[in-house]
């Protein structure tokens, strides 16, 4: 049976671990609320943008002089995967599930003879993909300095992606992120950015006058839409990360609690055993006299 002192130290150490995970859970809960708020605040813009583009794109997609961002390069050989993950760990399966989805996707593409290029956002995703796909990685965006995610960050990433597209470095761009559904459910998602695709049913029946003409508006809006979609993805990711961390830390706290209970029982038993032992010794000593 374990030494009493050892047990005591173990209980204390698990207790302090529980304190830390509890604190992290509460911090994550507070951050989650903020992240959800900003994701919600950004929604009207993204929805409007999509509706308008859906409308415009329907008419323009068939014509030959549609913008390249909509039409694509005419090939789908070179794929750019933008993998957005977090900068910090301890958030359950959040990073792994995004990395896994990206990995499956990348392997499929490679097997079918396509070329894959990977841009990672956030340290964790890069670390996980580096071993298998190190040779395909062309860029990494460091977000560790970013305290509060702003549109400018997404715009900068989009600018990088668009300049690669202009330089014919890839044909299809897909962003990988985790969609926030609830605190316990986050869904890793792949979304195609270039060539742009829109839901047809979003198109409304109103006929608009366009100023300047459709194609010029599309030229102006499509790059913005790429930035907006990246921004949305990053915001969703932010909320998902906090949600995942919250439930992971909740689990950890509960586990620590169970462990403490078990150790305490063991501790009490050992103490009782020691006392009984001592008593037996005293009694038998007294009898011998």
């Amino acid at each position: 049976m374990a030494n009493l002192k050892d047990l005591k130290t173990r209980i204390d150490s698990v207790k302090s671990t529980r304190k830390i995970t509890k604190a992290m859970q509460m911090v994550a809960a507070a951050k989650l609320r903020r992240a959800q708020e900003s994701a919600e605040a950004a929604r009207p813009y993204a929805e409007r943008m999509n509706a308008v583009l859906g409308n415009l794109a329907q008419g323009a997609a068939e014509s030959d002089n549609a913008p390249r961002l909509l039409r694509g390069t005419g090939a789908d050989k070179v794929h750019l995967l933008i993998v957005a993950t977090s900068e910090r760990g301890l958030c359950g399966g959040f990073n792994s599930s995004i990395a896994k989805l990206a990995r499956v996707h990348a392997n499929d593409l490679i097997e079918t003879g396509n070329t894959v290029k990977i841009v990672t956002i956030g340290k964790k995703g890069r670390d996980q993909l580096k071993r298998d796909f190190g040779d395909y990685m062309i860029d990494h965006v460091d977000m560790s300095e970013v305290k509060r995610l702003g549109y400018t960050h997404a715009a900068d990433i989009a600018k990088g992606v668009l300049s690669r597209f202009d330089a014919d470095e890839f044909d299809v761009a897909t962003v990988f992120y985790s969609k926030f559904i609830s605190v316990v459910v986050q869904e890793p998602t792949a979304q195609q950015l270039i060539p742009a695709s829109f839901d047809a049913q979003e198109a409304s029946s109103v006929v608009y006058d366009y100023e300047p003409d459709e194609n010029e508006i599309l030229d102006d809006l499509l790059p913005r839409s790429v930035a907006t979609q990246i921004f949305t993805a990053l915001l969703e990711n932010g909320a998902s990360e906090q949600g995942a961390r919250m439930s992971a830390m909740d689990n950890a706290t509960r586990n620590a609690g169970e462990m403490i209970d078990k150790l305490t029982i063991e501790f009490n038993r050992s103490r009782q055993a020691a006392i009984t032992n001592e008593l037996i010794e005293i009694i038998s000593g007294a009898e011998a006299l």
Partner: protein
Amino acid sequence: MADKMQFDLVSPERKLASLEVDSVMIPGAEGDMVAMPNHAPVLTTLRPGYISATNGTEVTEYLVTGGFAEVSATGATVLAEQAIPKSEVTKEVLQEFLDKAKVELEAAAEHHQSELARRVAEHDELLIRHGA
């Protein structure tokens, strides 16, 4: 209430304004336009300039740097990349926008240059008008 319209100003990060107004002046890419209730549906891109929403005698103004506006019979929605209330606009802010536009112009690929040059000129004009 047919002579009022809904005016929304939305940036990628949040909703900046949502009010009932009599009319909105929008700095469209091909010239300023005033949208009033029952305006025909129009979609236009924006050039850098001021949006002003008039409600009775009350005028609310915002500086926008780009984006687009959607006007329909019942309202106007402006999706601006960046919008700042006019009271917060200073020479420094405008100068910063101008500098940024210049940097972008220099870095841009050839087929974007004419458009970006126009932006630089527009920012320049805003700065000059601010001083006047």
